[in-house]
């Protein structure tokens, strides 16, 4: 399972990085989403990868998983979701103003 989690983080980060380096807004947004997914899995794994154990106190439990990263990842998911929504709105605004969805600036927009 460690191999699965590790390779999932690695592959998603690679795909995300590749997409971020594209020139169009849509691939960039998808790439950022991929990277934030990879990040969420990574945070989840930082409390050690265990299967089938409860994070909160239970009378029948034989062991526990660390509940802290689950709380952290919840915060991270909410924030990255909100930020992606803002970016989508902004990219749409730029698309309607400029008529294209390129993320690089025009000559007169630089500096």
């Amino acid at each position, binding site marked *: 399972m460690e191999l699965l989690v590790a390779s999932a983080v690695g592959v998603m980060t690679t795909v995300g990085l590749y997409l971020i380096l594209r020139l169009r807004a849509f691939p960039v947004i998808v790439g950022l989403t991929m990277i934030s997914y990879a990040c969420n899995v990574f945070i989840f794994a930082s409390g050690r990868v265990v299967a089938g154990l409860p994070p909160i106190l239970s009378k029948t439990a034989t062991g526990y998983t660390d509940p802290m990263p689950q709380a*952290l990842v919840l915060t991270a998911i909410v924030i990255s979701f909100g930020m992606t929504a803002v970016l989508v709105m902004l990219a749409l605004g730029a698309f309607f103003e400029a008529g294209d969805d390129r993320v690089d600036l025009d000559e007169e927009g630089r500096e």
Partner: protein
Amino acid sequence: MMGHWIIAPVVLPAVMGAFTLLVLRNTLPVARVFSTAATALLLAIALRLLWGATHEGPEVYFLGNWPAPFGIVLVLDRLSALMVALTAFLALVVQLYAIGTGWDTRGRHFHALWQFQLMGVCGAFLTGDAFNLFVFFEVLLIASYGLMIHGGGKDRLKAGVQYVAYNLVGSTLFLFGLATIYSVTGTLNMADLAAKLPGLPEGDAALIRLAGVMLLMVFAIKGALVPLHVWLPATYAQAPGPVSALFAVMTKVGAYAVIRIYTLVFPTDLPATGTLYADLLLPAALVTMAVGAVGVMGARKVQGLVAFTAVTSMGTLFAAVAQFTPGATAAALYYALHSTLAAAALFLIADLVMARRIDGTLTEARPAIAQQGLIAGLFMAGAIAAAGMPPLSGFLGKLMILDATRGLAQPLIWATILGSSFVVIIGLSRAGSLLFWKSHAAQATPVPHPAQPLAFVATGALVAGLVGLTLAAGPVSTWLAETAAELHDPAAYIAANKLGGEH
């Protein structure tokens, strides 16, 4: 004892932002009054906290009364109180400018976003928990996204998309770094990290070094260090003038985080990391100075010129921070105060010029502008301060930094600081003569423009702040030396967190 006052700089703007958004959204004059009053109150609270932190030492606010490291803490010490006070002063002055020039009428929700921005910045300065620092970074960023595109327009929106995307990558990197730290130490409370890291098993040293480098990269993005500065010039040049002026304190959030984390959690005498971060920071700072100076020389527009001046000042600041000695930290803090006010003043002056001119081009002269004499005088003062010429505080700040960077790398640091200052002086005087002197050759009557006394008062207040910082340099630098000593010996900071559980 400051008690609940410690959380007031976070709660007050949060409540006021929501109130402005929900109740005052259609009544701009009332929103102006409430928002300005809230910022003035924030300044009063910040000064009270500054007084308390000076006389009573670090104090911790336990959110929900959960003991550290299990709950989130806010820590008030000299450095955080100073940065909150600086933010509140800058915000109040720049807000008056925005009202005086009518910038807040060019889009909706300016004052609500302004308050949320203050909430994020103050929270980032006060928090004593690394994950909470991430959360406040996001709060200040999401408000800054709204402020950056205030007023709209094609170029501004496009620059906004770049700014948001770049910072989202930074946020993700921050999370990767925090998760790595948590997986190694099992805590994210900064004082607890400082207590636990010296006893770290040898096998985990590589992971913690990596996590530290990731955090350094995040703070370098915020602080506009080369090669991660690429977001700054376009963002600052395209953002509305008052917003760019407020953003002058956002780069200092990056500098603050570096000073806080790398003196408290990863000091240079920590065996696992040693001087790794200082060794990474110094070359980046020197290159930043050089790149900023070249940018000042090559700028073709007023806003670009000021943006690159800000990049140079961040390089100078980080060169002092990278020494990680009490003397150099004190010099860096003085320079941080100075460069925040100087950069903000220049951004406001650039905005005054832009409001009266057809465009901001620096390649050819344009006809004279309305109120030319006054604006030229302000530009002169701001440029002298920013370039680091006597008699203003920039000169004193750079002198302190030069004095504090004696050692092995001294020739390189001195040459870069002096060389970049020289190039910045040339760039600024070229811009000043083209903007104000050569305009007389055009022989055209200036296009009339409302005088807007409030805008000039606000810009003048920033310049007056620089003069005050120069006149009070003695007491201020003594106070900052004590602050730096406290930062480099964080025993009181750690003890205030009551990690043993005697809470």
